[in-house]
């Protein structure tokens, strides 16, 4: 299969995929990376465009996450599915690991649990054991560690 065919296929799929749970995603940035294009395009477990998330501090990565259950509960364990994408390329980052925590900045304390992170694929993680024990403002932090360098993304979550 030629290079141009891969690109067009990826763009078509990406263009019609909003809201679907499983989607093949690529973007124009893929054309810059020669060797990567010889691999099959990455299949992401969920569409980052419809998940929550945002960039890490320096913009090196973009985090997408979705909770399970989809409404984060108060006082009960929930999990997060997290995607780590290369900033600007929407490609999963295969060599990254993450650490996840959450604190209440107004209360000066964190969660009563210590979540466990399981790597479930390239740039794809399942974070189990999240627990927001009270309503209010929570700051979720996702530290991406790649090649020994960490970069943090922080997300504000208001739990009603």
């Amino acid at each position, binding site marked *: 299969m030629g290079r141009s065919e891969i690109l067009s296929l990826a763009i078509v799929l990406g263009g019609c995929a909003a809201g679907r749970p499983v989607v093949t995603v690529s973007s124009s940035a893929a054309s810059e990376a020669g060797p990567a294009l010889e691999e099959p395009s990455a299949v992401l477990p969920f569409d980052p465009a419809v998940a929550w998330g945002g960039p890490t501090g320096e913009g090196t990565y973009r985090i997408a996450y979705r909770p399970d259950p989809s409404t984060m509960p108060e*006082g*009960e364990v929930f999990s997060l599915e997290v995607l780590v994408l290369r900033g600007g390329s929407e490609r999963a980052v295969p060599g990254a690991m993450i650490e996840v925590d959450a604190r209440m900045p107004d209360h*000066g304390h*964190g969660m*009563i*649990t*210590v979540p466990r992170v399981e790597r479930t694929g390239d740039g794809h993680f399942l974070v189990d054991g999240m627990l927001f024990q*009270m*309503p209010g403002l929570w700051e979720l932090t996702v530290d991406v560690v790649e090649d020994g360098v960490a970069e943090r993304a922080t997300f504000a979550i208001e739990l009603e």
Partner: protein
Amino acid sequence: MIAPLRAPAVPAVVLGLALHLVGGSVLAVAARGEETAFSDSEKKRILRHTPLLPLPPDPTNRWAEDQRAIRLGHRLFFDPRLSGAGDLSCASCHDPALGFADGQRLARGREVATRHTPSLWNVAHHRFFFWDGRADSLWAQALFPIEEPVEMDGSRVAIARLVATDPELRRDYGELFGDPPGGDLVGRLPETARPLPGHPGHEDQKAWEAMAPGDRQAVTGVLVNVAKALAAYERRLLSGGSPFDRFARGLASGQAEGLAALSPAAQRGLRLFVGEGGCRVCHSGPFFSDGDFHDVGLPLDEGETSPDPGRLAGLRQLLDSPYNAAGPWSDAPLGAAARRLEFLAPRSESYAAIKTPGLRNVALSAPYMHRGQMATLEDVVRFYSTRENARPAGHHGRESILQPLDLTEEQISDLVAFLESLTGEGPDPALLRKPGE
């Protein structure tokens, strides 16, 4: 919204009603003017403390809502036969007349304990139990003091004998849990026996070790059922609506009758509580507790050489306990509370961290703090105001919010007036008496 008495939304006739209802105190409010006006953000914070939440379910105790269990638990709560010498019941330390506490600094059962008896008001709403949270259900909590040598000093074998041989208990227990162990088992049981791994030389521990595993299982089952009945009763000890709740309803609706429910002093105290006092940071939500554990830097008490390890030790005990929500005696070993256990782990700030007590009905259960160090609510407020003799923050993540507040004498008494407004109407008074009295 601006509030009581100065709010344009409150018509004059309604103001007149308020004046009629509480007379002088409302005049005082009117005279003080500004002090009664709550800003929108204050109002929002105040309304986070009300209304009361419904009784939360406890899936780990399948009898939690059973009326027969509540009745049996009520009787057992006042029954001194659960203790080793037949002289102490749960109510000996959790005295309804003393806010379901005992009025003492340190609990006194068979001996003097190392912590203060906590009140049982609204205990159903706790997430963890004991000052250090070493139980994660109310029934698992109720097991401990019955057999604890310094508390009731009872034994599960003696309790299994009692349930098997007392006709009334045997009948009521049997209706709920099925027949208790019968004559065969009772005939081969020692008089008393209980697991006391911390007291290897204790006669009860030796007798327990000598019992057959199946007999131990049967006897433990009786104790767990007794504890589940006790918990079903204790869940009903709910403080109910208080003057504060009536005031907050008035604040939300503008109805003067509600607004008149708090004295001017209590209203000023409320403003401090949700504002510069910072009290709400930990005493949050409808029960005025975040359910979490904190080291507030209390000075070492007489007889203490180091702080109570608090949550750090309590969490280890909870995770190791066969009576936790994930254990074989739980009725929901795969439920939410069990799942939570998988991820609980000590943190640096767990050391010396003590559970935030709720504040509803707090005025009924002096003295205060986990060693009863503070005789009055005024003493507690004064400690947070001055931080006098507070232990310096170490490396364990002391609460950074705890800075001296430098309150005036009037502010201290205002805060106390507010705390006193949290006393509720209580449940059916019959629940507060020994059955039959």
